[in-house]
Structure formats: structure tokens, C-alpha cells
């Protein structure tokens, strides 16, 4: 709790910088308009003008807040202009991708921990797979899916999300499954425990802290993947599509409001996983 005040201070500084930037970036347009109207702008007029432009280069924070309020609370959830509607589409793909990526990461981690060939052969490729920019693959996955007759936009987005999500889970779980020390493993061997038993009774439980830490990274990565999957592909629904449409047709404020909602969504998802982590670890007696 002792970091609450510093966090708020830094946030206030960021918002102040945002306001200052809004004034300086929007002043060009304001001066231009004033010159055409043959007027001189006084400083207070300049400020109020830059704070309230419809198509501002950089909308002021309160404009974004108003836009978010309008498109979430005041719109019906089923409306195509509601950010809750678009956020739900994105969330859905994110969760599918997260589930898929989590399962892939977990099973690869188990295979790598138990098989040396897998470790030597597959692990380097898992690392290389993350140095390939996923966005390079996104348009191709979508074209491939539509050629295969899967018109549903959910599937390609979930695949891209899973591609980004599996790696942190894999790395974390390899560490986690190897965290029991040799003494504990030997103890189970003296009990004549089978590999399956030693997995369920020792390795898996002791990997829990690592699992949740990497799931937190993974779910944020899955959201990034989903939004990236929506960006370059002409998707019509979802927060990424909202950013795209705002870029091409709408006022820039739509991009900003979609971005902020995406940020809130990311924060909420990470917080939920964090709460699950606390509950699980507490019940397992691992929380110090």
C-alpha cells in the first residue's frame, strides 16, 4: 500500500504531459482556423480550442473519457458502436487463444522435462518461433483459414493469440516442473512412486507459483495477439477492428478510446489471474 501515493503521482505527471502535448499538437490547427477567420487567438482561447477539437491530432484525456462513457454506458450492449460489444468479441478470442496456448505450453513443457530429445530438439525452435514477428504470419493465417472454408474470424485470432501465449507458459513451466530438488524426487522413488504419481503429487503442485506467474504474462500476450490479429486483416468486430476503423474513417478519438478500453481489459485480465493465484496458493499453503 505504500506505493499508492507514488503511483498516483506518476499517473498525474503522465496526464499532465498528455494535456501539454495535446495543446502543442493541436495548436497548429487552432492557429490555422483563427488565421482564416482573421482573428487573433489569445492564450486562454487557444487552450480551450485545443481541448475541444472534434478531430484533434491528440485528443485531451477528458475527451477520451467522455467518448468511452458514451460508447460503453450510454450505448446498448448489442449496438455495433458499443465498445462493450467489441470488447466482448476480443475477449472471447483472447480466452480461446489463452486456453489453447496454455495447453500447448503446458504439454510441451511436460514433454521437454521428461524427454531429453525434446529438450535438445524442440526448445531452440520454441525460442526461434518467438523471434519471428507474429504479425508477419497473421495475414497469412487468416487467408489460409478462409481458403480452408473457416469463415469464422474467431479461429485465426485465437491461433495468433495462442502463438504468443504458449511461450511464457512453456518457459515458466519448465522451470516450475524442475523446481523440486533431487532429495524430494529421491524420496518419492524410495516410496516406489510411479512417474505419473511423482508428477501429480510432487512436480505439478510445486510448479504452481511458476504456472500462475507465467499465466499472467500469457494472458496479456494473448490479448496483444488477438488485437494484432484484428488489426491488419480488415476484421469488422473487436477492439483491434475499432482501432482500424477509427484510423481509416472515423475521428482519431475512436482509436484512443479503443486503446484505453484494451488497456483496461488487459489490466482486468491480469488482475483476475492474480487473484486466482492468491486463492490457489493460499489454499495450497504456499503463500508466505
Amino acid at each position, binding site marked *: 500500500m505504500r506505493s499508492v501515493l507514488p503511483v498516483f503521482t506518476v*499517473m498525474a505527471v503522465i496526464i499532465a504531459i498528455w494535456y501539454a502535448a495535446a495543446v502543442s499538437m493541436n495548436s497548429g490547427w487552432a492557429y490555422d482556423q483563427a488565421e482564416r477567420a482573421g482573428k487573433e487567438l489569445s492564450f486562454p482561447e487557444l487552450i480551450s480550442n485545443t481541448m475541444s477539437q472534434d478531430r484533434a491530432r491528440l485528443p485531451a484525456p477528458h475527451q477520451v473519457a467522455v467518448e468511452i462513457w458514451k460508447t460503453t454506458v450510454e450505448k446498448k450492449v448489442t449496438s455495433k458502436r458499443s465498445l462493450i460489444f467489441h470488447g466482448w468479441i476480443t475477449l472471447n478470442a483472447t480466452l480461446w487463444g489463452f486456453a489453447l496456448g496454455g495447453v500447448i505450453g503446458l504439454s510441451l513443457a511436460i514433454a521437454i522435462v521428461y524427454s531429453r530429445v525434446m529438450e535438445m530438439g524442440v526448445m531452440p525452435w520454441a525460442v526461434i518461433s518467438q523471434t519471428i514477428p507474429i504479425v508477419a504470419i497473421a495475414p497469412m493465417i487468416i487467408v489460409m483459414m478462409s481458403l480452408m472454408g473457416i469463415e469464422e474470424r474467431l479461429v485465426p485470432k485465437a491461433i495468433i493469440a495462442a502463438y504468443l501465449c504458449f511461450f511464457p507458459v512453456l518457459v515458466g513451466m519448465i522451470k516450475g516442473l524442475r523446481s523440486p530438488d533431487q532429495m524430494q524426487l529421491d524420496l518419492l522413488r524410495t516410496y516406489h512412486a510411479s512417474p505419473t504419481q511423482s508428477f501429480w503429487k510432487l512436480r505439478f503442485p510445486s510448479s504452481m507459483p511458476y504456472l500462475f506467474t507465467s499465466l499472467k504474462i500469457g494472458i496479456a500476450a494473448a490479448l496483444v495477439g488477438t488485437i494484432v490479429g484484428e488489426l491488419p486483416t480488415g476484421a469488422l468486430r473487436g477492439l483491434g477492428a475499432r482501432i482500424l476503423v477509427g484510423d481509416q474513417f472515423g475521428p482519431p478519438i475512436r482509436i484512443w478510446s479503443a486503446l484505453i478500453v484494451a488497456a483496461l481489459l488487459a489490466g482486468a485480465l491480469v488482475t483476475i489471474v492474480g487473484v486466482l493465484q492468491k486463492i490457489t496458493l493460499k489454499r495450497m499453503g504456499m503463500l508466505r
Partner: protein
Amino acid sequence: MIWMLAALAFWAIATGVNICLAGSNHRHKRWARILVPALFGLSVLGLWEGIVRVLEISPILLPPPTLIASKFAATTDLLWKDFVQTALKGALSGYFIGCAAAFATAIAVDRSDFLQRGLLPIGNMVAALPIVGIAPILVKWYGFGWESKSAVVVVMVFFPMLVNTVQGLREADAIQRDLMRTYAAGYWKSLIKLRLPAAMPFIFNGLKIGTTLALIGAIVAEYFGSPIYGMGFRIQSEAGRLAMDMVWAEIAVAALAGSAFYGTVAMIEKMVTFWHPSQRS
């Protein structure tokens, strides 16, 4: 069918060799550490080729590796031009500016514990955000050239680098700091001689995360407007006309560039942080 059998046979042999190698005493040697993944990768490529040929999958859906390789060889000029535009001009310049700015910011807030405690949670949160979404805005601000790509990369690498550097600078023990004080070392002396070296593993962690983000940022930004060359532009336009062999060739370039970039940073890390336990196996 003969293709499939050949591919399967190659896959079986490669897997067999891998199993032998992994079980033998050579497994810690450097050549084995390279050979095993290389064989695995080749066998996957072989299977891919075999499956595509036997099932006669249309090259529009999934071109075989040989077709991609020949396309790659035939269009090296074009690929090189795209690579220079996106990776060298866009990603690399933004990477350097962003990392340098984050490093400078971390040093600047280093003296204030208050600012650090505020910055760490916010930076951690921002580092998890889908910042790529900012790409269309920055392309609008800075135009279609590589400058806008560079700006996107700066924003993307800034926060992971900042968080890691701030975290790293806290790494030196109180005992070690006290020792520096007994030597009458001032702030800058103890920063350069003790705390920066101690922070290096964290700083390199940030630098490594940045390498992949830099390429992603530069490529995504090109989807929102670019000159008629660049990796992102090429991928999008060629995927639009279903020229999948060209898309795959470009992906190969991206993979090579990404791996080389990451590998370079990892190599420098090895030289700088040779003392760290993770580097001395």
C-alpha cells in the same frame, strides 16, 4: 507416394540419430547442441514437403519449402530492399532510440525512491498493454516513411527496457553499497563500478525483449501506410493476391532477421555478464 516415403524415412532416421545423440555422452558438446535441433528442423521441413506433394495441397494454401526457397533465391534484391527499409531503418533506429531513452530515464529517476516506486507498477502494466494499437496514430503523425515505424518501435521498447533497468539498478546488496561507501565512492563512482554491472543481467533482459518487439512494431506500422516497399507492406499486399510463396519468403527473412538480432544481443550479453551464474553452466 515416393515423396512421402522418402520424407518419412528421413524423419525416422533423423529422430533416431537425435535420440542416440541425446542419450550419448556427446550431448553437452557444442556440435551436438546445434546438430539435434537442426536435424529436427530439417525433418519437419521434409515432412512438410512430403505432405504437400502427396496430398497435392494447392501452393496457394501451403507452398512446399522448395518452392519458397526458389522464390527466396529469385527475389533476393526485392527482399533485401524490404529488409533495409523495415529492419535496418525502421526497427533498428527505433530500438536504439527507445532503449537509450529508457536507460536515460531509469538513471534519471534512480535517485528518487518515490519515483521508482511509482514507475515500477505503472511501467509493468504498460509493458503488458497492446501498445501496437498506437501504430495507426503514429503513422498519421509522422507520415508513411520509416520515421513513423521508428516512432512505434521507440514506444514499444521503452517500457520493458525502463522497468528492467530500474529493477536492475536496485539489485546491488546493501552490504555491497556500504562497502562502496567505505571506499568513499560517490554516487557516480558506485553507479558505474557497482550498480550498473550488477544491473546488466536485467538490462540485457530488457534489450532481448526489445529485439522481438522492435520487429513486430516496425512490421505492424507498415500495415497502416508505407512506401511501396518494406516487409509489412510486402506481406500484406502479397497475401492479398494469394502469392503465398512470396509471403513465406518474407516470413523467412523476418525469422532470420529476428533470430540474428536476438542472437547478437544474447552474444553481447554473454560477453558482458560472463560472471553471472546463468552464464556459467
